[in-house]
């Protein structure tokens, strides 16, 4: 299993927002702000069916990248920026409650208010019909101090999937 460098893991564990880039049916990049969730091995994101275009794109092309770029949205001792490339799969086998079992505990740590919203599921039923995006990192870039005017450190995590 690929192991992300520690500074990138620290970013993933605290970031409240990241930018997930997927490729559309014409291989054009499309970027979505999303909360990144990390269990020490894989990166997870979750998407409501209301905003499920990205899920269709991932099903069409599994190649994705995820950036953590906003200094206001992370709490680490020393700010850094990171981009992780990888292959993603969509788990929509149980849109109603699959995400509650797999990613809600991670989500709750970053956005405790989600439990309050989940308690009002009757008011937002489609928002809580959600797929899980599971991302397996293959390469990572790290910019210390967030300075992208300097070359990044590059981490090859697995052989490229062709």
């Amino acid at each position, binding site marked *: 299993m690929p192991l992300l460098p520690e500074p990138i893991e620290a970013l993933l564990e605290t970031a409240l927002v990241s*930018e997930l880039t997927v490729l559309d049916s014409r*291989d054009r*990049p499309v970027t979505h702000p999303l909360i990144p969730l990390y269990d020490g091995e894989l990166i997870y994101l979750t998407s409501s069916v209301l905003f499920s275009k990205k899920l269709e794109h991932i099903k069409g092309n599994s190649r994705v990248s995820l950036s953590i770029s906003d200094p206001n949205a992370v709490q680490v001792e020393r700010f850094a920026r990171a*981009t992780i490339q990888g292959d993603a799969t969509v788990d929509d086998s149980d849109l109603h409650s699959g995400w509650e079992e797999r990613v809600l505990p991670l989500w709750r740590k*970053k*956005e405790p208010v989600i439990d309050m919203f989940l308690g009002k599921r009757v008011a937002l039923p489609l928002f809580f019909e959600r797929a899980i995006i599971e991302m397996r990192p293959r390469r990572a*870039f790290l910019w210390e101090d967030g300075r992208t005017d300097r070359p990044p450190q590059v981490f090859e995590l697995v052989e490229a999937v062709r």
Partner: protein
Amino acid sequence: MKPSPELLRGLPDRFEHAVIAFVDADGYPLSVATGFRVDERGVVVLDAVAGDEVQPPEGEEVNVVFSHIRPQPGVGYDERRYVSLWGELRRSNGHLELASRREQHWDEEEMTFFELSERGVPQARRYFEQVSSETGRDVRPRLSLGWLFLRTTRLPFLSATFVPVLLGIAVAALHDSFSWWLAAITLVAAACVHLALNVANDIFDTLSGADEANVNPTQFSGGSRVILYGLVRLRSMVLLSLGLYAVGIGIGIALAATRGWSLLWVGVAGALISVFYTAPPLRLVHRGLGEIAVGLGFGPIMTLGAYFVLAREYALEPLLVSLPVGILIALILYVNEVPDRPGDAAAGKRTLPVRLSKEGVIRGYELAVAVTFALIAVFAVSGLIVRPAIIALAALVLALPVRRALRESYENPYALMPAMGKNIQLHLVTGLLLVAGYVTAIIADAVSDDPPSFLS
């Protein structure tokens, strides 16, 4: 959509950095953060990034994203906004200039998350169809049965039925006509017809496209949306509505057979108003008659019907006491229709808020409230209804925040929500205080052969 000059020029004030996303040599997307400015021509100028592996390409479409949130420690975050631009990059003076061709953006201060979500409903439906097709099984959104029933029938709105029925029962009880079981069964019948009406209303609003056109539903307006969301099938809704009508009307016929066939006058009128509120060919709500229909149905008809079941006759007093309640229930619909205006207009529902200007709607509200409480005062003081019912005037204070919110938040459905709640309270509290007035009179009557005039 091509980005407007205003959108581009506003970027530096709203965002602190940009992220350039492109496709790298391996065919993977790659995204790199950088600084930016917008020059005097309105062109986004991005700071160059270092490193051969992360160089954005020239002459190919890239996606440049500006994203912002404000963390709220221990809670989550707010101030969500993003702008996504697509176009080609060109190197110039050590920077990257973006020729923006199209954009997508969202700012929760401009469009609430609820509206954004509502606009995503067609995509959600497509996704469910796609997953169903991929898996070969019918995949649909779900809610627990209890929540689904509550949402489908709009159960909390039953207070609109309980108030006029309790009032009819209270007036009958004052005149020595009371039976617990008749009162209970009358409430059940009226509740069934009300819930059947709610479900039928959703069916016709879905079929007419009114629900789909309304992207600003609130907990008080915009219908249950269970068909639109795919939570309940149209066929199930039809069966539910018919079932509830059957129970309500069945009880009504049984009551008419045992208490007097004259009950059918109000029973048939109520059922017809209920059905043709949204059903063709009358579609009362589409003709600007919805408010009057609801006022009659949940005012005089329910109160007179309940009174008749117990007293076996009609009388002037229950009719008079039902008028304020009827006006206030019509005002619930009237205010709840304010945020529904765009969707209703698109679907051809010519409700009063669709027809009237903002000033006209507010004036109409003020006039209706003034008439309501004037009626209560005149009827109570003159003894046409019991004098203790004058305590219902205390509820007038609840109309003030509704009036204020209509003035200040007319165009903002979600800011109007508390006022819609307060307006429902206005009906409920006024109605219950009228009932309390009757209960006071009943008690005074029971404990004294000659109660003082202010208690009768």
